[in-house]
């Protein structure tokens, strides 16, 4: 299982490195969205809950772009068949794809969050950086698991690009809610507040539950 995941993951990263299909688009989209928010809100700097909301809504929509492309190469170039012909555990594909999406999101945030701090954020990002990284990682995990599941669900449909956001956005509302609540005190003016532990716990529990659900149902998306 571990070697299969490693093989799939390295293939995934090589493909992304070659085609540069997902990550650059996600980064550009995030930055463009901050610019749009600047004009839409008519503000030079945002703080607290507004900052948290702008950050998460942007990252969420950027994630949808990555989710849309997640299984396209498998579907169009026979990757599913090639994988299904190998004597390997099918869960490996779920794990590898979720890890891929997780890594993509982390890479995007390495650029997009500093860009957010530069363009819009009022207080300095450094006032609660470790806490913010923790929230980002937990939210990324949730988005990765649910995104992989939704991408798998939508890949056989004709209107894939429409179905993905329609399913993913409601499913991700609790992630958005918890992540935004967690980040609000971290981004407020005049020193960071404490990280709300209960929302962090909710985020973690939500991640875990959907990881279990995804594990239980993913095989059925691969059957003929």
């Amino acid at each position, binding site marked *: 299982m571990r070697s299969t995941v490693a093989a799939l993951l390295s293939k995934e990263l090589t493909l992304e490195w070659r085609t540069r299909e997902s990550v650059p688009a996600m980064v550009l989209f995030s930055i463009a969205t901050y610019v749009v928010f600047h004009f839409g809100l008519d503000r030079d700097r945002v703080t607290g809950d507004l900052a948290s909301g702008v950050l998460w809504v942007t990252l969420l929509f950027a994630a949808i772009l990555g989710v849309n492309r997640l299984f396209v190469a498998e579907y169009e170039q026979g990757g599913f068949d090639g994988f299904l012909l190998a004597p390997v555990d099918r869960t490996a594909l779920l794990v590898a794809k979720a890890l891929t999406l997780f890594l993509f999101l982390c890479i995007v945030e390495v650029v997009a969050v500093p860009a957010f701090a530069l363009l819009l954020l009022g207080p300095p990002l450094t006032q609660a950086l470790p806490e913010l990284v923790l929230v980002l990682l937990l939210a990324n995990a949730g988005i990765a698991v649910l995104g992989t599941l939704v991408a798998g669900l939508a890949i056989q449909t004709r209107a894939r690009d429409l179905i993905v956001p329609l399913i993913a956005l409601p499913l991700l509302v609790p992630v958005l809610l918890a992540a935004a609540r967690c980040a609000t005190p971290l981004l407020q003016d005049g020193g960071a507040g404490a990280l709300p532990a209960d929302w962090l716990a*909710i985020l973690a529990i939500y991640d875990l539950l959907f990881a279990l659900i995804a594990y239980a149902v993913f095989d059925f998306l691969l059957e003929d």
Partner: protein
Amino acid sequence: MLTIAFALVFFYAPNDADQGFIFKIFYVHVPMAIVALFGFVAGAVFAALHLRSQDSKWDMRSYVTIHISVILAVGVLVTGSIWARASWGHWWIWDEPMLVSFLIVFLLYATYWPLRFSIEDKEKQSRYASVFAIVAGAFVPLNFAAVRMAESFTHPQTATTTTSAPPSVTLTFLVALAGMTLLFITLCKYEMASKHATFRLRALRRRLAGDEDELALNGRSAAPQL
């Protein structure tokens, strides 16, 4: 079955006539919400049985329960919005976790039909729909919990204040709940029977056309087939 259900549904209406006019909608709104919630969860259970047994009978049940539950969810949104208008003066309020959750759940389940419709292969369609139903069914209570928590944090006083209700209210409510449950079951049964009939009719029509080989003449549909 149908007569009992309708008898009960009509039976509860005069019962709450003596309550305040606005409060009356409570007997429709809350039971409807509870039944719709259980309907979504039941849809997920049927979907799981479908995946396990590969029997399209369960897919049909899952489809029908979700279908009726979504209709009830629309009812919940409408009645909730009227209730909100009457008691707070706004058509929509974000403080009411039930209403907000139902909006999110409704938005999610509204994709059930597009998803089914845009998968051409029948077996894939039912399998993917079942996976969706399971994921969404698990999402419903989780989403509820998350939204409820969000609201109770901002407005601690709106947390479940179960003030002891007078027995007449409890009784009417329970009767209303039973009536709504029966109505739900009846609607499901009715819908199932109508789907069966449509399917049988189509099969007969095909046989009349005398074409056994080209069975795929009928147009694409989002409904499962038996």
